[in-house]
Structure formats: structure tokens, C-alpha cells
């Protein structure tokens, strides 16, 4: 079978201990929570840290609940995706996020995988998520051990795809992430967390830990939805994902509307120009068509996933439309 490389396993009890272990071992250490991304990646020799720091003993990183003011929903980074998907508060206030968490991989993986891990999921590419033998036969790639991007064949930029289900929703919801490192704790908007570099697509420093996800909750009429394109009804990573969150006036007109599309490039894309199309209007079929058209013009999938890129692009307006229609009744 594919084997893990030898490493030392640490299991600290506090965030501070974990951060200091990560700082102490530097590039030789990686954090692990559910392990559903890291374990196969280690078996593929994409990562070979000498020290693996488990976060699973840190109780402070668990829990789902409101802050005292009741305007921020806090989800501990260690919360399992299955728990996020089924939590009544998440389902009521952030249905799109609950839907997304429930569509990650399959049931066993959702019982292990955490929301913090999903936020930090490594980018994926057909030339990268392969065994050491396979990648050696290929001659490796820009993201790992090589010098060539086999997707673009030109350029020096890795285009591995952001493939996590929950971040597009967190971005659409205006969520922020808490990160703790040796220098202390900082908050960063989920929308600013990701960068367009497929090699390393987040602003998390190697010795920082995502400890919690914080979602602002307003009392207005808020709705959100999520659509995931994949060939099977379970297991698969998205070929395209669409997360939408909207604030509505009492008369049903749009106060604000955010659409995020992902699984195309290294970073989830916040669709531009949506508010000007929809603000002050109801989401009727003409507005939805215009939003879908606007989304299509901004999305250009690449062959980083082994499925027909032209079809994936054509699915952008279809899935945007369906996600917008899905806002009803949520």
C-alpha cells in the first residue's frame, strides 16, 4: 500500500503550545486536524514534515455558538464537517454553509474532516495529486518538485484549483478567520485569506493556526445557497462551486448580493458587478439571467481538473442561476 513517511507526532493541549511547536520546527512541521487532506498528500509525498502537530487535543478550538452580543456566530476550527452540516444554528442562519459542509467528500470523511481543515485545504490539480512514482514519470510540476506547469505549459504561475466547499460560503457571508501564531492572534476576512498562487493559496503563515471561523449575523432578511458541480453524488471534489449570500428588504428587493465561484483557479472568485445589477430589484428571471451572464464572463476554467473545461465554463451560468433560484425558501 502507499506508506506514510516517518515523522514525529505531537499532541499539544493548547493553541499556544501548538503554535510554539510549529514555530520551533519551522518548515519541518505541519499541523493536522482531521487529516483527510494531509494524510493522502503525505502518502503521495507532497508533504513530508518531520513533525506533525495534532490539533485534536485543543478543546478551545471546538464549539459552535454566538458571541455575547449575539451578532457573531463562532465555529471552532476543529468542528467536524458533519457537525457543521447538521448544526441547527448553522442551518438556520447560514444554510449555504451547512449545505456546503454536507457536500464535502463522503460521510466518513465528513466525520473526520474539520471546517478549519477545509478552509486550509491544499489546492488540487490533475498533475499534482498523484503518487511519487506518477509524478516522477511525469517529470514533476511547478507546484511540487518541478519547473513546468503542465496545465498552462507557459508561464511561471501555478494554477492548481482551490477545491474546498466551505470557503466560498464563508466569503459570501463576510466571515472572518482567527489565526494564532507565535506573534499572537489576528483576524482576517475570509475574502482576503486566499491568494492567486496555486502553490500556496492562503495568507496563513506556516506557524499559524486557524482557530475559529466567525460569521456576522444580521437580523435582516438573509438568505444563502450553495451549488456544487460534480459527476458523482458523493466523494468528488467540486468541478465548479457557487456560493451566494443575499440581504433582502422586506419587500423582497435585493439590498446586497454576493456571489462566489470556485474550483476554477487557485482562489475563490467574488463575482464583480452583482450589486449594481441586482440592488433594489427582485430576483426575477431577467435579473437572474443578467447575473448569470455576468458570472460567465468572469470565469475561465483551466484543464487543472481532468474534465472538459469548456463544459465547466458553460456550467457557470447554469449553476449560478440554480443557486440564485435556490435562495428562495432557504
Amino acid at each position: 500500500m502507499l506508506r506514510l513517511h516517518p515523522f514525529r507526532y505531537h499532541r499539544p493541549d493548547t493553541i499556544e503550545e501548538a503554535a510554539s511547536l510549529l514555530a520551533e520546527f519551522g518548515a519541518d512541521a505541519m499541523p493536522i486536524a482531521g487529516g483527510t487532506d494531509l494524510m493522502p498528500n503525505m502518502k503521495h509525498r507532497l508533504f513530508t514534515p518531520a513533525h506533525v502537530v495534532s490539533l485534536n487535543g485543543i478543546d478551545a478550538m471546538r464549539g459552535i455558538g454566538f458571541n455575547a452580543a449575539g451578532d457573531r456566530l463562532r465555529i471552532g476550527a476543529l468542528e467536524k464537517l458533519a457537525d457543521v452540516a447538521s448544526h441547527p444554528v448553522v442551518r438556520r442562519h447560514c444554510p449555504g454553509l451547512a449545505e456546503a459542509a454536507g457536500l464535502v467528500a463522503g460521510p466518513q470523511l465528513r466525520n473526520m474532516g474539520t471546517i478549519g481543515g477545509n478552509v486550509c485545504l491544499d489546492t488540487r490539480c490533475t498533475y499534482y495529486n498523484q503518487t511519487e512514482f506518477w509524478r516522477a514519470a511525469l517529470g514533476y510540476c511547478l507546484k511540487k518538485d518541478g519547473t513546468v506547469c503542465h496545465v498552462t505549459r507557459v508561464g511561471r504561475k501555478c494554477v492548481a484549483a482551490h477545491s474546498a466547499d466551505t470557503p466560498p460560503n464563508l466569503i459570501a457571508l463576510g466571515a472572518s478567520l482567527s489565526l494564532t501564531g507565535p506573534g499572537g492572534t489576528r483576524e482576517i476576512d475570509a475574502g482576503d485569506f486566499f491568494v492567486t498562487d496555486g502553490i500556496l493559496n492562503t495568507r496563513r503563515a506556516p506557524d499559524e493556526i486557524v482557530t475559529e471561523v466567525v460569521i456576522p449575523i444580521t437580523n435582516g432578511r438573509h438568505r444563502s445557497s450553495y451549488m456544487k458541480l460534480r459527476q458523482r453524488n458523493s466523494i468528488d471534489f467540486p468541478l465548479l462551486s457557487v456560493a451566494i449570500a443575499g440581504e433582502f428588504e422586506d419587500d423582497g428587493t435585493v439590498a446586497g448580493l454576493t456571489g462566489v465561484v470556485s474550483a476554477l483557479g487557485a482562489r475563490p472568485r467574488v463575482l464583480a458587478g452583482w450589486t449594481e445589477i441586482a440592488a433594489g430589484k427582485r430576483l426575477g428571471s431577467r435579473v437572474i439571467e443578467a447575473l448569470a451572464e455576468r458570472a460567465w464572463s468572469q470565469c475561465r476554467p483551466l484543464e487543472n481538473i481532468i474534465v472538459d473545461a469548456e463544459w465547466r465554463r458553460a456550467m457557470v451560468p447554469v449553476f449560478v442561476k440554480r443557486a440564485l433560484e435556490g435562495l428562495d425558501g432557504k
Partner: protein
Amino acid sequence: MSSRRESTQHSIGDPQRNGSRDGESGLSTIGRPMRKVDGLAKSTGRARYTDDIRFPGMLHGKILRSPHPHARIVAIDTSRAEALEGVHAAVTGRDMPVTYGIIPWTPDEYPLCVDRVRYVGDGVAAVAAVDEDTAIAALDLIDVTYEELPAYLDPHEAIAADSGPYIHEPRKPGWNGNITKTVKLEFGDVDAGLEDAHIMVEGDYFFEGTTHTPIEPHCAIGLAEGNGRLTVWSATQVPHYLHRELARVLDVDPASVRVIQPPVGGAFGGKSEPFDLEFCVARLSMMTGRPVKILYTREEVFYSHRGRHPFHMRYRTGADREGMLTAVDSEIVMDGGAYASFGLVTTYYSGQLLTAPYQMPAYRFNSTRAYTNKPACGPKRGHGSVQPRFAFEVQLDRIAEKLSIDPIELRRRNFIGADTRTVNDLRVTSNGFLECLDEVERASGWKHKHRRLPFGRGVGVAGSTYITGTNYPVYPNDMPQSGIQLQVDRSGRVAVFSGASEIGQGVDSMVAYIVAEELGVPLAHVRVLAGDTDFTPVDLGAYSSRVTFMLGNACIDAARKLKAQVQEAVAAEWGARPGEVLLAGGLAVRAGDTATSMPLRVAFNLAEAMYGTLGSTGSYNTPKDVHGTYRGATIGASPAYSFTAHVAEVEVDVETGFVTVEKIWIAHDCGRALNPVLVAGQMEGSAYMGFAEALMEEQIFKTADQGRAGLHNAPSLLDYRIPTSLDTPALESLIVESIDPEGPYGAKEAGEGPLHPSIPAIANAIHDAVGVRMDSLPFSPPRVWRALRAVEDGRGDRVAGLRAAGVGGAT
């Protein structure tokens, strides 16, 4: 997106039987739903598969594989690997320089490559070390110098090559070494048949390659003992052929070689010939004196492959005004991969197995199998005939459409009948195909659905036939194809020594049911010891759907010999005639006087006292007059043929191209269902596997432009997609029993035939739903979407028409 299903329905209809009814069969065990004898052990995790076996001092082996699709091996140096602490031995191709091949006429593989690698993943060297990690580290220390050669990925280019280096040395000077086999056969006057036809339908079809994806990866353990004996445990479905090849290639006396086949976790044809790991564990154990185990990674399973060949097919089919076939003509190019495997047979099967269940006055096929620098293709469930069946059944649907004849009616009209010969002179005996058509038509509500469902939803039908074993073994001999031995204990227990391979299909259970039926013993008193070449008679293996028919008949033969002895002994005790002694329900009972009885244990003891130690053997061999006399006539000949019909109902999302198969009705003529639960299981599994190939599966490879020619696109179960339970349609099994005159209690095969119609039935249903013909597999969302766009943009047929008419809600 396809809709989520809360649960998958399974149901089995009551068997539809020709002739005798249940009560008239006089059978007590056969025909009843029963557990598998190994079911509980497997479902509770107690079954010990090959990888569960461990020995003290056992070493772990690993095989170094080629990163090149085609290259000469200039040099191999294993000295650095052998020097690594914990490494006990290394082997290369030069240590086993003997070619082998499952078909004796095409031996073209070495256990490890000697001077040439032919695909990315071809084995070049192996090591045995104290543990797997050390073995993996040792592979990095083996130095191989390659000289790259041009690679062929496309079978047409391989066939067009006019000079070397070919993938294999030409068998004769001037031949093309990229061709495994060409078969051209013609029966009747095809050109005249096509010319006289009222309509002629012509089409090009492509069937993408698919692989078996058994859950258990291949695994083998070799144990060479000091006494000269060699034992190999292997997850194989052909222990007998492995036994022969191990002895031949390793140059040891076959009498000192023992092959043991532990429970196998799925095979589907992917374990039906020897593989590199079996030779390597044997050789490494002979070198080290230690047991050596090799377990493939999932990636290696994809490289070892032997799955379904990609077929490029052209069909011309002629029919008269009434839809009666006048002639069928085909040209097929098969992409064989790097080695022959069963390819010679596959090439024949691509044409030979199409000639039923429909009458064809004239038929011609011209099939060529090319070598390419990719993992070797071989037999996968429905070997060689699933691909042509897809093309041909779509052709029939097109004829029905053009002639405005209901597709089921068209198939009825062309029915070949029972007790007849096909155009290529294969003998057909029992044939329940019409009942299969009736069943799927009735159960699916066909008459209310075909051409009557709203746009986006449709039904399709297809039929097929398949062999119940091959008339001739892969190596010529006159001995039985199947043998069995029974032995009776003084406790009343019956032991069955069976050489057949239990691969999940239920063969161990099948022989237990037969013994219980014939001797009247409770099932719990039957023990089956199987798959050990030291102790079990030869059975040729679990392939070509041969085992129930052949081993079942052998088992009846053995059991009836034993039964006769028991009847004699009991009759003597009672002063009765042997025919008056009935064995049933754990008792010997006197016919007409049920008050006179004794426990079977006592009856067995009486027989042992009369005849000595009680046991018997039984065997089966095929009839030899069931085929024609032309060259190749024996290939495709079978003692009996199964027949199947499917109706599939689909929903097509025209915006996305997603096809949801809502339900498949599967009617299958298995002769007699020895255990209807197992038959239905095979029917469901087959239909599922065909459905998977129809919608998802693709064994495809990167091109040079994509970084490395011949590199497998996605050798993992994440990216090589097979359907999950959420994707699987509802399946309804409709068992048809034609009671075959030569089958055990009338049984025929059920393990492979029911796969065939899935794919064309789905293709035909897609056409009924949205008016596009899917002629290339798989019918994945992008392909269906493109086909729909092409119709919209161009020829404007049913999609545009129905859309204009406002039919259907999917748009």
C-alpha cells in the same frame, strides 16, 4: 444535477419458467433463496484474504516500474539496493527470462522486463526486504538506464506503422509487430444482403476502455521450503493456470508447486492470468528461503489492468421493410495495450458472439487488435462482446426508429429461436429471450412510456446473449474442464473438494446446495474446501461464466455416484430396491412408506461398511459437436447460451448533460436459478457495472503534450470514477428460466450476460429522452451536453422541435 435518491430499490420478480413449475421440479434445496456458505464470514470481517495471511519471518516485496511508455533497457544495477540494510534479495528480468502468456500461442510477457519496457508501469525489477518501507527505499537504489523509443498510443497509428521498432518483434519478417491478431470471417453473402436491404443503417461507435476495480488489490505470497516445494497464495481466479505457468517459467517440477487461492475480494476478469507479483514472490522466496509477500497498490492495479479494450467500431446493418435483418457487417479496431493477454480470443469474441439472439442471414466481421504502449487490455466481465453489443443494439434502435417499429417488437421479429444454429454455426439450445423481452416490457410499463414520456425523460431497450463457458480450454487437452471430489465422514458430514475459484460469485455455495439436494444432507453438514491445487481436482478457473454449468454438472455426477452407494446399502438393510430409498431432509426414507426411515448418518455408515471409505469424484467435459469447422469456429462455442433484455429509464438534464438512470429492469434467462438470490445479485451487479461504464468509467492516458505519453490519467479510485450507492439506479431483477437440457438442473450462466444490455439500453433511452444518439462512451455530462449542443446548432432534430413545441419542463 442528478437528483438524490433516498435509497436504492432492489427487487426480484418471481421466476418465469418454461415448462415445469416450482412444485413439479421435485427439488428441495435447489431453486430456493439461501445464504452463501461464506456470506457471514465475509460480511463480519472474518474471511482471511491473501493480505491477511502473515508468516513468521515474512519479507515484503516491491516491484520497480518503468516511467517510460516504450524504452530499451540498456542496463540494470541492483547492487546499491542489495546493499541496503534489511534488503534480502533483488531480482530482474534476467533472473526469469522465460516468456509466458495465458494463451499458449501468444506468449509475449516476461515476469519482469528483460530488455524492453512497453508501458508506464511495466515491471523491471523487484526486491524483498524486512518491511515495506525498506523495500520501497530499495527501489530508489536500483539504477536503470533506458533508451527511449517512440511510443504508440493510438491503435490506428500502431497498425499503420511500416517499420520498426515495433512494440513486439514481428512473428514473421515483414509483418507488423504492432498487431496481435486480425480475424476476418464472413458467413452468407453480406454484400448482397446489404444491397437487397430496404434500409441500411451505418454508424461509427467508440467504446472507451474501462478497468475492473476490484476492491481487493492483487496480492501474493511465495513460500519456498527447503524440501523443494513451492507454495504460492494468490488472489487469482485461475489457480490451475497459475500453477502451470509458475512451474514452466521458474523451471520447477509442477508436482512440487502448490497454488492456494484464499477468498478473493472481487476479480471480474482482472485476475484471470498470471501477474508479475506471483512470479516475483516465488522467485524471491526461492532466493531467500523466507516467505515473501507483495501487495499491489491501487495504482499498480490500474497498471496491471487487463480490462476492457477500447473498440473503434463501424457497423452496417441491413433490414427489410418488416425490420428483418438482411446482413450485418462490422469493422473493428481494438486497442490492446502492451501485451496480448487473452487478446487472440478477444479478437474472435468481438465478432463471434454477436450472432444471437437475432437471426442474421449474412454476417461479416473484420477485427484487428493492435498493440499500444499502455497497460494491457484483457477480459473484463462480458469479455470482447460488451463493446460490439453496445454498437449493434444502438443500430437496431435506429432501424426501429427509421421503420417506425417498436424496438421491442423489432427484436421479437428477429428472434433466432431455441434449438438452432447461428449464422456462424454455433449451437443454441435453450433460449428464453422472448420471455426476457416480455418481462421487461411488462415490468417497465414500456407501452406507456416509449415515445410517450415528456421531453428529457425516456426509455430504451436492448438484448444480448453470452456464453456459459467456452467449449475448449486455453490449452488443448482432452481431460475434463471441471472436477470435484466428495468425501463422507462417519458423523454424516460431507466434504467437497473443489478446484473452482470462489471470487464472490457463489461457487462454493453452489456446490454445497447441489450436495444438499442430491444427498439430502442439511446445508450445515456440507464443508467446501476449494482452491488448493495440492488437494482439489482441477477446475480451469472462474472465467467465461463456466463454473456453475461445468462444476455444477461435475458435482451432480459425483453426488449421484455416492448416492447410488448409499441407496444400495440402505436398500439391502430394508430388503428394498435401491430406487425406493429416498435421501432428503437429513433422512433416508422408504418411498411409499415414510414410517421407514433412518438418519442419513446411519445410512452413510451402512454404505461405508458395504463399500469401504466413502467418497466419489465427478467431472464434466464439454460436447464437441456444437460448432462449425471453419478456422476459429471453436471460439465462441459454448455448451449453452444465456439471454438478457434490459429496459432503462433515464432523465436527461439538457442544460448540464447529466443523465440520471432512474431504473433498470433486467430480465435474464439463466436456465434455472439454483439460488434466486445469488442470481439476482449477479444480475444487479452486472447491470450496475454496465451502468458505470455507460456513464462514468474511462481508463485513459496522458499524451506527450500533457507531459508524458501513456501515463495513466488518474490511477486512483478518487479520479477513476465508479458510481457510489447514491448514483446507482433502482434495479429490478426478472429471472427467466428456460431449463437448459444440459445445464445442472437446467442452469446456465448469470454472471456476465446481464451486463451487456445496460449500455445500449441507456444509450437508446437517452435518444428517447432528448433525441440524440450517443455513439461514444462514456455518456458523461460534458459529452451529452456537447451532443445536445451539436443538435441544437446544426441538424435541428428532436430537441429543437420539442423545445419549439414547448414539450417538457427541463429547459
